[in-house]
């Protein structure tokens, strides 16, 4: 065995010393490289998303110090619920929004309006009114029951920007109505419901409307009735024709004893409702109809039933919806009635939710907010506005 620095000449001894020197330094060179500090890893920036979850509740650093996360609009008397959000700017980076919610006012349920410049710090909520340097801010009632077909209470606002106007669909005892406004605050109602109670599978009057205009100019409305979600179409947003069968029904019930350990029954096997219609054109040029909805695990009237926010969808302008088996937002606080604000920085989900910030054992209903993507961050909150 020969083991020299070079095989075929006679200079191995001298080169062997140099080789020894360099060989002894090689580990030092290698270890010097190893000693550098690592930076944080990347690789998951700007990931594609349908923009509809999963969502995470807002945290205290993302809200004004007066807000108790994740609640963004609350009042123990008004019991704000069933939010509908409307962007106030066409700038994709702007976060100013108007929020229409159901409030308990004067013994009845009406629709009030508020707004926030950052989509989180809303005028007239309990957080805003902790500031005693200004008179109490009260969100104005923009719509209350005053038509014979409406009964005494309004619910389910769905605000839509149409040619410089705000169209506000709402639900009442006799169906779904429409009010129009040029400033988003003073509304004029149509005298008759645009969607009267139906028959067949619709065991209750329609409620919780959500209206959108598709890229082809056609109007589509999703609404809840009975335990399911139906669809109607229109050419002008005022005259509606029902599609027929429900586009989304509760997931067929599953016997829990047949499920593998740890697997929960479907979250929406009791009832589906509160649809939020969100059409978009995907990057591949397809129409994707996204629908957020409330799923309940038991039928109405069941004492212990829970709810969660689910995601359904379809490609194209007609047909039933498919759904995700897992909810996109669930906190076991009776979350329901989703509304969504999408801007260039992400998506904010608004829901009504049990508010335990005052009493853990006696919650009341407030508007909570959640954010997607879950790993993203929101810009710092802004000040509360001075006007609704």
């Amino acid at each position, binding site marked *: 065995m020969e083991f020299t620095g070079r095989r075929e000449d006679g200079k191995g001894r001298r080169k062997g010393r140099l*080789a020894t020197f360099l060989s002894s330094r090689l580990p030092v060179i290698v270890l010097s490289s190893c000693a550098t500090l690592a930076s944080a890893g990347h690789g998951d920036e700007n990931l594609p998303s349908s923009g509809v979850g999963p969502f995470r509740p807002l945290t205290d650093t993302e809200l004004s110090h007066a807000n108790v996360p994740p609640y963004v609009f609350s009042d123990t008397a008004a019991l704000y619920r069933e939010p509908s959000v409307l962007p106030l700017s066409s700038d994709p980076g702007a976060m100013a929004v108007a929020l229409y919610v159901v409030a308990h006012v004067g013994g009845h349920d009406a629709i009030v309006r508020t707004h926030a410049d950052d989509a989180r710090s809303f005028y007239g909520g309990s957080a805003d009114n902790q500031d005693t340097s200004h008179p109490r801010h009260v969100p104005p009632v923009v719509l209350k029951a005053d038509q014979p077909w409406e009964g005494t209470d309004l619910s389910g606002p769905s605000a839509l920007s149409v040619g410089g106007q705000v169209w506000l669909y709402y639900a009442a005892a006799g169906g779904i109505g429409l009010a129009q406004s040029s400033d988003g605050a003073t509304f004029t109602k149509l005298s008759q419901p645009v969607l009267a109670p139906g028959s067949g599978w619709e065991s209750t009057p329609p409620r919780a409307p959500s209206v959108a205009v598709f890229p082809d100019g056609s109007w589509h409305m999703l609404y809840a009735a009975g335990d399911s979600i139906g669809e109607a179409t229109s050419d002008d947003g005022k005259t509606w024709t029902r599609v027929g069968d429900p586009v989304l029904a509760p997931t067929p019930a599953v016997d829990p004893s047949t499920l593998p350990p740890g697997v929960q029954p479907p979250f929406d096997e009791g009832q589906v409702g509160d649809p939020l219609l969100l059409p978009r054109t995907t990057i591949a040029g397809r129409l994707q109809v996204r629908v957020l909805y409330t799923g309940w695990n038991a039928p109405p009237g069941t004492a212990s039933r829970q709810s969660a926010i689910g995601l359904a969808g379809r490609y194209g302008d007609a047909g039933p919806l498919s759904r995700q088996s897992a909810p996109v937002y669930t906190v076991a606080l009776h979350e329901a009635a989703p509304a969504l604000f999408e801007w260039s920085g992400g998506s904010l989900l608004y829901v009504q939710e049990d508010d335990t910030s005052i009493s853990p054992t006696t919650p009341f209903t407030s508007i909570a907010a959640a954010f997607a993507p879950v790993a993203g961050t929101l810009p710092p909150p802004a000040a509360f506005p001075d006007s609704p």
Partner: protein
Amino acid sequence: MGDEGRMRRPSVFAAVLLLVALRAGDARANPLDVFGFGSRETAMGGAVSADVTDFSATYYNPAGLALAHGFELSIGYFRADHSLYMNGKDNGVDPVKGMIGGAVVPGKLFDVPFAIGVGFHVPDDRLTRVRALPQDQPRWEMYDNRNQRLWFGVDAAISPLPWLQLGGGVTFMAATVATLDISGHVDLFGPSDSALRHEVNADLTLVAYPDFGARVEVTKDFTLSAVYRGQFALDLNVDANVRAGVGLGRAGDLTTLGILLATDTVDSFLPQQVVLGGSWKLLGGALHANLDLTWINWGAYVPPVTKLQATLNVPPPQGGWPAGIAPPTPPAPVTITPIDIHDTVVPHVGLEWRAIARPSWQGFVRGGYEFAKSPIGAQTGPTNYVDCDRHSISAGLGVRLLRPASVLPGDVRFDVAAQLSVLPTETTLKVDASDPVGDYTAGGHIWNLGATATVGF
């Protein structure tokens, strides 16, 4: 001491080295598969399995080590910058960069040419990176994380016949077994008032795979090669124990929470590979034309999705749970969607032209091409293992100084390489309209630049 005695001691030394080579062997991961090892080899599109004798033979074909003419030391650096996009937006995939190098130590064992080769790639950002992502999260499966690895290899080779060289080694790399203990108090309504203590214990263990290579000189101007690289995977196992009192505000604990989480993740799976190569010497040896075909057993790929087993123990407080508080439920076990992935054959072609031949130095011009068809099928379902076909075009220059100085009586080489990998944009159409990710496009390019210096003795 006679000649016989002098022979015996080096033989023992060689045997020890051989044992080290076979026991420790190579530590191989993925960066070299994608970006090459050594500037000459990268410039030639990686088509060198029948035409490599320096430190990079520890990756391309250990049999080539047996043809080393002398003791060589190599050192270099490369940097590969990703510009990979989904929906036209850069995903920020980290660059792969760091030092490369190695050494070849030739000798004779019972008059049979014999050599030990050492090679390394040391990232200058982190030694290794392990990420276990949800299977529905879009990620560049072949480029993000997988290529950020420490690579270290030792191989041995012999030339039992003048026209035959054989080499091989064993590969190892670290696997992680860890325990995470969390204990303390959880306030259900005051997260900032919760106090938890963490304790992490982690062990790095070794996994191994073999590799072998053969090189046959069919004629003076034509050489064939065959290489086998074994399968490799990192197991990342983390067990987490959570023990905490659960309360409301400062009223004391309602109950105790106990969670035992056991996770098992296979990370950085490297499939077995077989390389068949040929090298032709043309123009009197001034031009080398090489072709390699690499079969990669991607069909055996195990995606890095965490398998989670959770055991939850939360006894209800006295009097039951307060209104508005639902007892926690353990997370559902992860149902892993099988990945649609298949074997591929990757062609590599390379040219090396000795453009300048002077008594004291030589100049080389090199070029190469590689086409790596994506092994991953269209991600139309819930998973999002994003990948695209890759066309890699490379070029390089080299200078060989022939015994330039008395202190360095061997040759000195400087090689540089540039490689552009283009991933044509592909569109993924989701079957399920309720998919949270939706349709997307993916594509981009990667620039890889490097330089290597080699000193012979």
